């Protein structure tokens, strides 16, 4: 283990994916700069799953899209299998494209409506022949007769399966899943979650699993990163974080999730945060969470906390929960 100077988690060097101090700034209105991702760092080992949760707009998707190089990071590095891939050109990326794939949130929007399942799954590089496509379909639980159909002829869950088949076609090592189940009905969500887990077991995939549903993340991921306004505020193994959140935001988040059990609900202590998440175009000074935090003090408003180990996970808080 070696500690990095940058903000972010301390990462083992042999990890499959290492992200250090990743930053993304978008040009905003009136010349403002939207710091969508502001120094994110973490590592991900082979066959591992890292869950990434946080409120809308906190930069989860942006992080994921930078890792698959849909976006060019404005700062930081992405190392994949020991190779710095942060600024590779499109051609140099090609071999890497096979190794890093992505699953999207909206199952229909991510399938080209004018292509057949076969064209979609074999991908723009035509990686698979018909038999290969059929294999993939079987793998994700679709029947061979679906191969010449168009996306609009499928239900949401099936469409998401096609998206997964496409991601699997190049036999990747890492899949970035950007909210793969949040657009699906509850009864379908479980199917897809199970499928992803089965595939991981069978194919040894590593997932970066982005979601805002803490319950799903907990079910899928061994490690969790909680993001707030472009930064990771808490990262570590699932158990400690859920059982005993150290960041006040994580705690509030967990307490806000309704549980389908009236008894629990009736007795639960609920922390209701005041106000809305701040805009990344005008982040508050110091700790970004301070305006909504019930125990914020002057220090919080002046100085931004960095990730420090607390009880088996890392937390960016001056006054972590005890």
């Amino acid at each position, binding site marked *: 283990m070696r500690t990095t100077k940058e903000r972010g988690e301390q990462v083992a060097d042999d990890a499959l994916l290492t992200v250090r101090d990743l930053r993304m700034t978008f040009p905003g209105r009136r010349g403002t700069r939207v710091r969508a991702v502001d120094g994110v760092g973490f590592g991900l080992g082979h066959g591992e799953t890292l869950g990434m949760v946080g*409120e*809308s707009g906190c930069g989860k998707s942006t992080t994921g899209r930078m890792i698959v190089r849909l976006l060019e990071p404005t700062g930081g590095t992405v190392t994949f299998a020991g190779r710095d891939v942060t600024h590779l050109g499109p051609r140099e990326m090609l071999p890497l494209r096979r190794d890093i794939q992505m699953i999207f949130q909206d199952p229909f929007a991510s399938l080209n409506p004018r292509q057949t399942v076969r064209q979609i799954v074999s991908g723009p590089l035509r990686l698979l022949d018909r038999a290969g496509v059929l294999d993939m379909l079987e793998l994700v639980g679709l029947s061979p007769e679906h191969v010449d159909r168009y996306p609009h002829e499928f*239900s*949401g*869950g*099936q469409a998401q399966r096609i998206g997964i088949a496409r991601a699997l076609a190049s036999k990747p090592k890492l899949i970035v899943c950007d909210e793969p189940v949040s657009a699906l*009905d*509850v*009864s*379908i*969500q*479980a*199917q897809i*979650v*199970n499928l992803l*887990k*089965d595939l991981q077991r069978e194919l040894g995939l590593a997932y970066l699993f982005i979601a*805002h549903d*803490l*319950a*799903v993340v*907990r*079910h*899928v991921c*061994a490690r969790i990163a909680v993001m707030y306004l472009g930064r990771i505020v808490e990262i570590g193994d*699932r*158990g400690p974080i*859920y*059982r005993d959140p150290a960041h006040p935001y994580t705690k*509030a*988040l*967990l*307490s*806000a*999730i*309704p*549980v*389908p*059990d*009236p*008894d*629990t*609900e*009736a007795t639960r202590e*609920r922390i*209701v*945060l*005041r106000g*809305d*998440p701040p805009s990344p175009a005008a982040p508050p000074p110091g700790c970004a969470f301070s305006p909504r935090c019930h125990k914020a003090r002057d220090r919080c408003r002046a100085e931004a906390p960095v990730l420090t180990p607390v009880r088996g996970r890392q937390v960016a808080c001056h006054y972590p929960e005890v």
Partner: protein
Amino acid sequence: MNDHDPPAGASRPHAHAKEAAAPLLEVTGLCVSFGAVRVVDGVSFCVRQGRTLGIVGESGSGKSVSSLAVLGLHRTASVTGSIVFDGEELVGAPAERLRTLRGSRMSMIFQDPLSSLHPCYSVGEQIAESYRLHRRASRRAARERAVEMLAEVGIPEPRRRAREYPHRFSGGMRQRVMIAMALACEPNLLIADEPTTALDVTVQAQILELIARIQEERGLAVIMITHDLGVVAQVADDVLVMYGGRTAEYAGARAVFKTPRHPYTQGLLASVPGTAWVDADDGARLPAIAGAPPSPATPPPGCRFHPRCSRFADARHPAVCATERPALSGAGHKVACHFPEGAR
């Protein structure tokens, strides 16, 4: 027929639930068809003053269509059955009568607060509009009322914000505006159609808290439509589970969550990951319901759920499930299943 009676003794204890109150809204055998397609097929429920009915179900199961039918907002659909609001039959009532009830005695809030607010009028204007109309208030009084309502739903600087347009508000704020608008005329019934689906969990918690507070203060009857079982568990006294346009199960919240009798409800509850934080078997497979919801245009015959039903898949009772529509049976805890107690 009294299958619309509130499920007795099933509700969770609530500080000031008015047990004695007569039902404010009684819906019996509601059917809604678009052309030849029957989207809601014989749904019955009732809500009392001060109580909350939760309606859950998958996308397309007819939740929104049922609630819009209550307000008489369907223009092209044919609505049959009976909807009695405060002793008055609404099915077949003149449109003008329904109109005067809407917004004044029963209100509705919608899922997507941005597209549900008119982009070209300030929020103050939009709140004041129904108050002016139903209360015949002056422009100034209505404006005051709007500011008052904005303050009530917890919007800071209400006087200034009243002059702003919806696009300047965040998602949670917009939903607050919708609530303010719905409550401006102090209605008796509030129908909330997935009011928090588009919102973040932290904001969802705020909105649910707000609705609960207002309900408590005013003794409102609330119909909370959602597909999030957690939300229902949190707010509802009674729960109606819909599947394919029909009632699957209708009972008190506690009964539904603790002793579900319909295989769909059971499957649904089981497939929600991490029901309790502490003792979950992390990483295990979720018991999922196979298949996808039925299409309303060509629903499966018999029990709508049978193609996905594990009891049916067990192949012990195929014929009846696939051919006959199960009746909604049971005294307090109503369920529409041929084999409600399970096959095992």
